[in-house]
């Protein structure tokens, strides 16, 4: 049985959005534009009007245990995240050894071309000792990750100088010091109400200011802030883009729909780093989507690590499985903000400054792997997110296809 995806919008070779029909046979796209009449009876036809076909949806994904890489890659890709960048995670694993990177690339086999490894700048993601940066890149890492802010200025300068010399991009993780400061959520009314210490938005701004000041003498390093959660920090980065074109910033869509008020009953599944902010910040972040301040929507995804036994909010580690909700929430944010379909593409693709993956164009004989995101404003539907939160969302996922196989419709 062949599959026809009709009336979907997608990016062509000239970076223009066109309405196209795709015929898929086996793992490949065998027809673009024209669907032969005689095949109709033998076709599964999916009309995806008012939807965007995204061939290279991209996710930053925290590191599971090394042995789980292949399994997780398969799982995440089956949810429509076709390209992944694995980042170190101080909760489980630090990508700080060249031999580990080489081994994981080997384990991934043919999947490796869709997966990028971003190596850890410091040993064990700690503040004191740099990793062997050039060897990590030689082993196959595509960028360097700063998971925590190196407060030792001399060491930070040394790291930046070295990265500059190697000529690779930097991804900065959350601009918070939550674990160091013993904070578990945003500082504000909710942290006071539930009696657990929070970290303020001002702290994120201070960290971004510090990092940007350190980067001033390294204008050629492409920089991506993976996940920013406060409006002042986002504005600061945006203003820096006037002087630096190789700067980009990601925001999690969950920060656009959930505020810290959702934590008033200690919902462990929403214990994120950076933390969910106030409802006013949430509103302003959503507005920032429409004025071009956000370059990438990051899933903020963490796999379930170790024993899955429930822990209290206080004892629970940061991060949760967001992958099942990600595209529904993204679609909702984009529909609600009335963004054009081409914007979907830019917000879900790898930030251009990073160039971690080759941009894909769906054409004849290309691999039939993509996700189709609906942009239908009137379809407000109730969804259960994170297992127990009922939420009304617009738009959503219409089709997920991987290697010519429908994973979800």
């Amino acid at each position: 049985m062949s599959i026809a995806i009709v009336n979907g919008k997608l990016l062509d070779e000239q970076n223009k959005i066109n309405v196209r029909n795709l015929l898929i046979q086996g793992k490949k796209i065998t027809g673009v534009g024209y669907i032969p009449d005689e095949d109709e009876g033998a076709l599964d036809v999916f009309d995806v009007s008012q939807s965007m076909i995204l061939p290279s949806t991209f996710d930053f994904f925290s590191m599971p245990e090394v042995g789980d890489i292949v399994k997780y890659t398969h799982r995440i890709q089956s949810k429509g995240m076709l390209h992944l960048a694995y980042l170190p995670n101080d909760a489980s694993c630090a990508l700080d050894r060249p031999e580990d990177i080489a081994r994981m690339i080997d384990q991934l086999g043919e999947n490796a071309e869709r997966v990028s490894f971003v190596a850890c700048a410091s040993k064990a993601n700690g503040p004191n000792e740099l990793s062997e940066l050039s060897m990590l890149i030689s082993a196959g890492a595509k960028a360097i990750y700063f998971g925590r802010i190196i407060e030792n200025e001399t060491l930070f300068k040394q790291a930046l100088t070295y990265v500059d010399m190697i000529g690779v991009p930097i991804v900065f993780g959350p601009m918070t010091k939550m674990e160091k400061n013993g904070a578990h959520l945003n500082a504000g009314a909710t942290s006071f109400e539930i009696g657990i210490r929070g970290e303020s938005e001002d702290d994120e701004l201070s960290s971004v200011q510090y990092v940007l000041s350190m980067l001033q003498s390294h204008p050629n390093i492409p920089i991506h802030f993976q996940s920013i959660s406060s409006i002042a920090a986002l504005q600061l980065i945006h203003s820096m883009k006037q002087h630096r074109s190789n700067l980009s910033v990601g925001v999690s869509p969950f920060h656009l729909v959930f505020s810290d008020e959702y934590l008033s009953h200690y919902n462990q599944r929403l214990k994120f780093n950076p933390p969910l902010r106030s409802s006013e910040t949430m509103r302003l972040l959503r507005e920032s989507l429409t004025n071009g301040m956000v370059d990438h929507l990051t899933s903020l995804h963490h796999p379930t690590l170790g024993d899955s036994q429930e822990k209290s909010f206080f004892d629970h580690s940061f991060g949760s499985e967001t992958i099942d909700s990600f595209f529904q929430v993204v679609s909702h944010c984009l529909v609600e903000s009335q963004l054009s379909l081409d914007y979907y593409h830019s917000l879900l693709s790898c930030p251009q400054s990073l160039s971690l993956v080759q941009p894909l164009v769906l054409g004849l004989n290309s691999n039939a792997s993509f996700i189709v995101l609906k942009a239908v404003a009137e379809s407000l539907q109730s969804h259960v997110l994170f297992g127990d939160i009922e939420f009304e969302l617009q738009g959503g996922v219409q089709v997920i296809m991987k290697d010519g196989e429908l994973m979800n419709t």
Partner: protein
Amino acid sequence: MSKLFNHCIGLRFLTKESVVSILDEAKKIKSGDVIVDLKNQSVVHVFFEPSTRTRLSFEMATQRCHAFPMMLDVETSSLTKGESLVDMMRNIESLGARAVVVRHSNGGIPYFISQQLAIPVINAGDGYHEHPSQGLLDLFTLQERLGDLSGKHILILGDIMHSRVAKSNIWGLLSMGAKVSVAGPPNLVPDCVKKWGVDVCFNLDDCLPNVDAVNVLRIQFERQHGIALPSIREYREQFGLTQQRQELLSDHAIVLHPGPINRGVELDSDVADGKKNVILDQVSNGVFVRMAILSLLMDGAS
């Protein structure tokens, strides 16, 4: 009769009806109109944080309810062997405990335990979150002295930011219709209380003549985490309830303190031991209120 509430985690989780039912039950217990008989059921007390009066008060309340208090020594418990909190609490439930009293230094732990167990969980204070039995005994004492709390003006004075007692008082007083003000150093009084309908006062001398009661909080040096007070002397100068300031209170106004008192800091000895203080009444009322909580959660009244 179905229970109005299944756990006692915080006053923010309790309806006014539930709060009133606890206060009424405590009043009946104190007057001898009700005798509580929990028929030797076991109540396990798990204190992860030091406590003197709350621990003894719960122990006494359990005994006077004809229940059997079992004190878990956390330092020699299976937690030290790596057992998880959930597993330990489930084991306690399986051993036959009919209620658990928990104190913990982290906010939300009693709430979390209540989600895991089928038996009632009573919060004996969790981090910065709440201290519901203290809040209820304060309401009880205030009601005993001032009558109906609706429209009464209560000032909570001190480190509001780090006080679980302050929050339990705020939620309880608001649900009873009282007017609530808070006073303290600006860095220890979160602005967000205003959105709950609480007034914020930074000039104590202006505020004191207008209140019916002052609940003075202990300055919690152990919870400051870098929020420094310029000095204890300056705190006392600005926000200590001194003998001189006590004179500003109206004749009928009373002074509460949840203890332990830092004498000469938030409260002068002349005030702590003076005519307006009801501090020891709070302590004795605490037993009746805790008996009422156990009784209502474990269906023990007769």
